[in-house]
């Protein structure tokens, strides 16, 4: 079985080939070609297959993660999108939830919406909260709305009517009319894209889906055609935000579900690596050039959230566009290698502003003048100026020192290395805050978790982050630089569906619950027909529940098995246990309601573990290849520190910190009191020792 996975990122396209028979993993990195993405992919695939000596026809499955949908939204380069809504509610999308994401900022801008008011049209109809039709759909108003949108040259239409989650009839009628009158228009219905209550969030999700639909359709068709032309015989699967793979046909219908495609793949890598090292509970820490992404894996499964915000400013609640689609739970903050540090003379602030790839950090020598986290890490002695990116790029230490001194050291009266430490430490505290949200705030005890760190900068910061939170183990996976691509090899095809149906949980409601799940299963079975070889499907149920009267729900996994007598009682018990874990209290006897019901179909496609990397030739016996001065606050300042070549490490030979472990795509910092070893699978495992 030969599988290929590729992840198209902003700067690089990462590719990986796993050959099951020969039990090996082949990696390749190639520059992304933004003007025509499929060209870069094809160049990369050609090189990858050449390295592996495999013909296209021999490849059994292709997996793909993409940022196409995210970028279309972030850069506002999606389709010209129209919105059809209930008469009287034209402005739901533009008004939003109306809270300032920063109370003291009265000059803020709201997120730029994905459609303009001129493209939002109303139709006469009304459905009640209970699904009753209060006013029938007026066909003349539908035709008038369609006329208007067609005249404006709209490419894609969202339909989001009030209370359509409770009864989709009117949205379906509009869809039928659109199909008859404008068969080329892409159509997205809120009752299908996001059948949940709260009109703004549902409309926002549906409009975003419509906005990226034509672009994603063209893009996937392109890639599929190119692959076929090159002789690949098998179907390509696309990674969704929830960590499951789907067929291109489904991705085209619900492109909003692939917005967090790449990051989700990275989390899957962490799950696989955690599993092979014996950890079912893992925090994921991916720090790249502009952001750091943090996530969690519970009981071997990535945590899934029911909603998130895309294009959030400084990652603050209420600042982005809400999307009500299941996604792997991730917190993204503006702390990457390129994040810029500044001071007001008293305090140091880092990010979210980033120097990006151009001009980049000062030490790149591309004209950057403001110090970044990467500059700080160079000044601290963590990065090797002659071996950055495997030596592909030389770093300028003198410039970095001068830049850090000028911007931070002088105003704060700190030596350059202390100023650099300040940048490093403040960046850590920002990430720590996010890590705290994903861990303790959401009921996860860090002492029971391991952290998997990847991305170019992740392993530089991981050990200190782990210490601050009390996480005992850090794992740096092999191939950390192409992590997301490897992650896809460990994904199953996964289809989700859900519906809002308010139900008070009392014995006797099993019939209704069974009905809801029969309906959800029928829906998924229709989608499963698109999947090749959907044998051995596993079904997972979960619901969002609350105490009657609350407005937010917690996710509760529901038991498997037939929904019969006693099932409601088991669901109640599951809710109470989850609630108490989160908030410290429960309310025995209070009425419990379920709001959203969800069903997941998992079709196994995952590879059985990740193959090890091939050993390097000419492996020497001594992994410690030298020493250099580096700053460790834990040891009181600059000390001589061991430099370790990862490719020379032997299995289970522990090296005590302080140490710096170098490899082509990243550098790992090991603190005094900690120790690092190479596991039999080829991952670095750091044991966090004493000390704060």
């Amino acid at each position, binding site marked *: 079985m030969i599988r290929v996975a590729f992840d198209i990122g902003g700067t690089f396209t990462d590719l990986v080939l796993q050959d099951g028979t020969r039990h090996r993993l082949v990696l390749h990195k190639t520059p992304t070609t933004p003007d025509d993405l499929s060209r870069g992919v094809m160049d990369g695939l050609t090189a990858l297959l050449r390295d592996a000596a495999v013909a296209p026809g021999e490849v059994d499955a292709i997996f793909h993660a993409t940022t196409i949908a995210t970028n279309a939204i972030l850069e506002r380069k999606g389709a010209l999108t129209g919105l059809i809504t209930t008469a009287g509610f034209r402005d739901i999308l533009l008004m939003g939830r109306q809270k300032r994401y920063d109370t*003291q900022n009265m000059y803020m801008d709201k997120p730029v919406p994905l459609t303009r008011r001129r493209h939002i049209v109303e139709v006469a109809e009304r459905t009640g909260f209970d699904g009753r039709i209060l006013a029938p759909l007026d066909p003349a108003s539908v035709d008038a709305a369609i006329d208007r949108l067609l005249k404006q040259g709209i490419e894609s239409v969202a339909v989001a009517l009030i*209370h359509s989650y409770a009864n989709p009839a009117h949205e379906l009628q509009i869809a039928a009319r659109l199909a008859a009158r404008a068969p080329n228009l892409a159509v997205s219905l809120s009752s299908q894209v996001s059948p949940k209550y709260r009109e703004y969030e549902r409309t926002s999700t549906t409009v975003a889906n419509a906005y990226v639909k034509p672009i994603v359709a063209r893009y996937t068709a392109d890639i599929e055609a190119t692959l076929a032309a090159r002789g690949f015989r098998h179907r390509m699967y696309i990674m969704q935000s929830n960590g499951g793979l789907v067929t291109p046909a489904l991705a085209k219908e619900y492109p909003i579900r692939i917005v967090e495609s790449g990051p989700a793949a990275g989390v899957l890598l962490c799950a696989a690596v955690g599993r092979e090292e014996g950890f079912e509970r893992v925090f994921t820490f991916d720090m790249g050039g502009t952001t750091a992404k943090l996530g969690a894996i519970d009981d071997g499964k990535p945590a899934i959230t029911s909603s998130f915000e895309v294009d959030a400013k400084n990652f603050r609640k209420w600042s982005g566009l809400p999307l009500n689609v299941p996604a792997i739970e991730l917190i993204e903050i503006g702390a990457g290698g390129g994040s810029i540090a500044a001071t007001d003379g008293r305090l140091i602030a880092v990010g979210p502003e980033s120097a990006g790839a151009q001009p980049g950090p000062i030490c790149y020598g591309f004209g950057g003048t403001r110090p970044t986290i990467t500059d700080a890490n160079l000044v601290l002695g963590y990065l090797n100026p002659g071996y950055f990116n495997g030596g592909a790029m030389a770093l300028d230490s003198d410039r970095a020192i001068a830049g850090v001194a000028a911007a931070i050291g002088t105003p704060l009266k700190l030596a350059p290395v202390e100023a650099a430490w300040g940048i490093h430490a403040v960046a850590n505290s920002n990430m720590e805050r996010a890590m705290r949200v994903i861990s303790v705030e959401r009921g996860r005890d860090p002492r029971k978790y391991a952290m998997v760190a990847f991305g170019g900068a992740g392993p530089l910061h991981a050990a200190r982050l782990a210490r601050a939170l009390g996480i005992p183990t850090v794992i740096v996976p092999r191939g950390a630089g192409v992590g997301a691509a490897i992650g896809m090899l460990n994904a199953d095809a996964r289809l989700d569906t859900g519906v809002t149906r308010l139900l008070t949980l009392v014995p006797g409601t099993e019939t209704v619950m069974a009905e809801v799940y029969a309906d959800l299963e029928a829906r998924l079975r229709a989608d499963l027909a698109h999947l090749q070889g959907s044998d051995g499907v596993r079904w997972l149920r979960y619901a969002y529940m609350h*105490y009657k009267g*609350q407005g937010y729900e917690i996710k509760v996994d529901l038991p498997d098995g037939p929904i019969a007598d006693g099932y409601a009682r088991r669901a109640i018990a599951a809710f109470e246990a989850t609630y108490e874990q989160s908030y410290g209290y429960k309310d025995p006897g209070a009425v419990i309601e379920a709001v959203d019901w969800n069903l997941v179909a998992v079709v196994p496609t995952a590879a059985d573990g990740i193959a090890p990397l091939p050993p390097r030739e000419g492996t020497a016996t001594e992994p410690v290849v030298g020493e250099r001065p580096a700053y460790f606050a834990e040891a009181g300042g600059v000390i001589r520190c061991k430099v370790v070549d990862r490719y020379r490490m032997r299995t289970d030979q522990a090296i005590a910190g302080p140490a710096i472990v170098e490899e082509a795509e990243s550098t790992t910092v090991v603190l005094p009191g900690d120790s690092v070893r190479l596991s039999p699978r080829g991952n670095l495992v750091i044991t966090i020792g004493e000390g704060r």
Partner: protein
Amino acid sequence: MNDRTLDRQPAARAIDPITLSVLWNRLLSITEEMGSTLRRTAFSEAVREGDDFSTGLFDRHGRLVAQGNFTPGHTGSMPFLVKSVLKEFPPETLEPGDSILTNDSYLGSGHFPDMFLVTPVFRDRQIIGFTCNTAHHVDVGGQAPGSQEVKGVTDAVQEGIRILPVRALKKGEFDRDVIRIILGNVRLPEKVFGDLKAQRNANFVGARRLVELFENYGGNQFDSAVEEILTISEERMRARIRQLPEGTYAYQDVMDDAGVGSEPIRFHCQITIKDGTATLDFSGSSDQVPAGINSYINYTNAYGGFAFKVLADAVLPQNDGAARAVRAIARPGSFFNPQYPAPSGGRAAISTRMFEVINGALKDVLPERVMGAFSQWANPNISGTDDRTGKPFVQYDLIFAGYGGQFTKDGIEALSPVMNCTNIPVEVMEATNPILVRQYGIIPDSCGAGKFRGGCGVRKDIEILNSTALATLLGDRHKFQPYGIFGGRPGRLGETVLISDGQEIQLGSKESRAIKQGDVISFRLSGAGGYGPPAERTRQRIQDDIADGYQTEEGARREYGYLPQAAE
């Protein structure tokens, strides 16, 4: 001295900037975590959907250290409230697991619906700090459901239950007797108790986190950090104020009335900038009024201080230090410093006007920061006994529209003005209460013209499905338009219209009115004021507004002399 008493000595040891930056981040994150706990476990629409609550962390001296991103009326009142509570309950009398509850208008944020819960945080039987949060409760009894009625309320005793600071939790559990007294005096005891539990949860989570922080850094580091945070904040604030020209600046505006048939209320603010401090003197305003709308001094300070800081671009994390340099004062017995038992349930309506008089006063000092006046928001309650269940209901609503035009851009559309809450989804409202929302959207042509126009007003029409109900209105700008600035035009007047049996009846902005099934109340908020002369508005902006329907062609002709066929 008992080691649990307040030690007034400032901590001697300084702290390095790195530890300080890290600790500050952590303190802020605790207040955010408290907020998400409160929101997610709350029961009323005001709290769970409207975000009408806030959280804060205090040091062991009762000084505010950090606050979450919540509404200024709450956050700004909190420092005064905690100090008052500690006078009543000196720290040496507090036990682990205690929490103190109060909703007093004078001690708290100016009206009874806001209940504050203060929890001492113990470590090894010593107090290391306090967690505090406040939430707007949907009803605390009194003359009208929602406890925010303006007219006919001449005395605070008519406004509901007044809880002077009491020990509402002991050993982490609610005191049954105290809770029974409270729940026996409110219309929606289940929601009130549910929200109180959410408040308990938030303080519990915050306390747990503060102890962890303290243990990680030790008492000395922690104390030094707090001293430093407060000092830095005060110094920054003073430094910013020193950049402004010293002098005295004043402005005046009015509110419609304090209920149908009463006189307009004068808002007057005189700002004195001197020696790195700003004094906001509201003494020239009207006397306190015999209606539920007076602004107790904490509330005056909260919004006065907030407005000044925003306009002076001195936006710092809100804490005791930052508050020291800006002070609001008002003559006792005046509208902005009323004497108990002055009623104040509807005081939420005044926050925008307070901002506007400070904005007006600073017009020539900060021309790039000031803006046109806001659309006046509305905060009505619709209440009754639900025909379907026989139980009381209160539909609390928050309707927000546009901001005034600003130095570089048009007024922001449909955003929480000055105060900072979210709206309540239509689908949530209809699923909860016997009402139907007929429309909810922007009112074209309502914006004040200008080089940068004001934001538009918003219209929300609500039909009553219940046999009978009571509408308690809380709005303004039905008589006096929101002003424009530097030649910008004022926004259109707001109105509230009762559509009943085919008739349109104009209601007062703060009227209470019995209504019946089929009636529609139409809230039509004022538009916001423009910035700069309309003649300087670009043709492109006018055309975009027409295409998007913010302005009609006719409106554009009237305000800007716009002609569609005119040469480019």
